[in-house]
């Protein structure tokens, strides 16, 4: 269950972190952190605020150079790599940042086209437009959102647009930093459905940072718990519940954890397609979370 006990080579490992240490000034964020992500799974990463979940993600995708340790993605070392070297790896993953991180001077559609243009410049504009349009609709945005600028979108729409951009290259590996934070429950559940169905159809591997217990129950194959500056445990939720760690017990057995558990049990007894249809209908009747915060200009 603990990552160190995982037999090496038992799974096709996509991300392999060994002995990662991160430090900001005097503050030690990670110490000797180990983590494996297997192909085709959704790994939820949980931990209290300030335990360095986002820093871990930044270390893996190469935005943060750790003090020591080793990070391998698709079997290739990531630390100390030149940007130009890492291009081929970067084309195989997509990243959704917390706030969406959309380019504010481009429309949503153009945002989605940026990675495709960068790696496949020969693709014609007409096809690019079509690709952007279906990616935007796939993430649950209305088709006309493609012509809007990020400042004209609500927070939830920005997240969806950011997801559309991170999926632009049909990546094998997806990093999601709190994708459902700030979404209404119906929108968040629809987002979960979306990620799960993308994982199933495209064979995605997902590294998912979240605080959302419902998301953990609904879509995560395994959950990694960050505490005391390293990963204290990795496993399915029942496996984690069997552990005697105070933070894990409080997290999953606290009032919110129990409610999420009950909801997940109820959900598993109903037909998934019916659930999805119901959610779609609910989203549509509410106009989705598509109402922008404010009018443009």
């Amino acid at each position, binding site marked *: 269950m603990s990552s160190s006990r995982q037999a090496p080579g038992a799974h096709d490992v996509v991300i392999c972190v060994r002995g990662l240490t991160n430090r900001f000034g005097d503050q030690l964020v990670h110490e000797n952190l180990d983590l494996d992500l297997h192909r085709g799974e959704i790994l939820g990463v949980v931990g209290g605020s300030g335990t360095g979940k986002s820093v871990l993600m930044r270390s893996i995708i190469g935005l943060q150079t750790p003090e020591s340790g080793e990070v391998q993605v698709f079997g290739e070392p990531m630390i100390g790599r030149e940007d130009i070297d890492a291009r081929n790896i970067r084309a195989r993953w997509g990243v959704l940042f917390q706030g969406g991180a959309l380019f504010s001077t481009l429309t949503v559609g153009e945002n989605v086209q940026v990675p495709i243009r960068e790696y496949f410049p020969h693709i014609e504009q007409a096809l690019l437009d079509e690709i952007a349009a*279906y990616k935007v609709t796939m993430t649950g945005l209305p088709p006309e959102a493609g012509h809007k600028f990020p400042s004209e979108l609500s927070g939830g729409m920005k997240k969806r647009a950011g997801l559309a951009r991170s999926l632009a*290259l049909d990546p094998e590996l997806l990093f999601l930093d709190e994708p459902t934070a700030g979404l209404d429950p119906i929108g968040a559940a629809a987002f979960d459905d979306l990620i799960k169905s993308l994982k199933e159809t*495209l064979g995605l591997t997902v590294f998912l940072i979240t605080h959302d217990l419902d998301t953990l129950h609904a879509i995560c194959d395994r959950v990694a718990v960050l505490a005391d500056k390293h990963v204290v445990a990795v496993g399915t939720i029942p496996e984690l519940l069997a552990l005697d760690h105070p933070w894990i017990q409080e997290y999953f057995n606290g009032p919110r954890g129990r409610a999420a558990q009950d909801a997940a049990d109820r959900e598993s007894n109903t037909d998934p397609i019916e659930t999805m249809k119901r959610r779609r209908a609910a989203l549509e009747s509410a106009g989705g979370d598509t109402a922008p915060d404010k009018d443009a200009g």
Partner: protein
Amino acid sequence: MSAPADFDLADNGKTLRFSGSLILARLGNLPQHLDDLEASPDRIDIAPVERMDTVGAWLIHRIARDHDIPVEGADEDQAHLLKQIAAADQPLKEPPAAVPSFQRVLNQMGEATIRAGVTLIGLVGFFGAVLIDLFAVLRHPGRIRWNALVRQFEVVGVDALGIIGLMSFLIGIVIAQQGAIQLRQFGAEVFTINLVGRLTLRELGVLMTAIMVAGRSGSAFAAQIGSMKLAEEVDAMRTIGVSPMEALVLPRVVAAFCMMPMLSFYAAMVGLVGGGLFCWFSLDIPPITFVSRIREVVPITDLWQGLLKAPVFGLIIAIAGCFQGMQVEGNAEAVGLRTTAAVVQSIFLVIVLDAFFAVFFASIGWI
């Protein structure tokens, strides 16, 4: 590496058969070839396809949709993917067509004119709002934010001493040197003192200081207030009950208003020192002569002119900076645009007003 995506026509052109990897990285020229396809097949066969991603699925879906023909040979995952893509295919509203370039130029000119007018009205309105708040604060002196005010005095005034001093010193030297070269032709080198004295006290001291303050502080006002607006800090202030006008705008406007005359006077003095040093070393005019000549040839009204113009210029710079900062909306690019606008507008207005002042002072006899 998997085989590139490809297609052929089987069964006498009745079946469009795809093969290889229908993924973005292996597409090659497939989309163009598909566009050039003239045959009208009856069905699509994707059984030989090894891998398919959403782009591949989109291409298949598009042909199936356009020719209204069935797709066969899809395994479970591929069928699911095609279904998802079909669900995502919604008629797209086209963005409005591009206008002809001539009309666009006219449109832009018209819009720019309207924008300039709106900005001018906005500036005047903002000035009025500042005055109202100023009087409101003066009636309740307890509401004056001394900390913010003193901080702005320091940022606008004290911190600028170094750069403004250096600039004025060099300008004093340049005026003296250029003047001396021209006046030497008439054997009138001694009039260099008149040139330096009148020019620095009357015009250059205040004008160069205004340009420097607009570049240093006007832009900073716009950028600071603009980024605070983007981060919703200004809205947070309003909800807490703090007036952004009182907390952000007034200290900056008052600081610029008060600091400009002092900085201008300082700039004029340093300019005189620069000119005097040049006269001493290059023209052999000793400092004592320089000072007594200055007192003879420069009327005191020159100093008053400079000092009267300075606070007005300071006011314009601060108002333009704060006004543009408050107009920031939307994204980070707007902060940059508004900052540029603040500097350009304030320098433009300063120079226009300087021309008015020159005519005005001449007509009241301060020549």
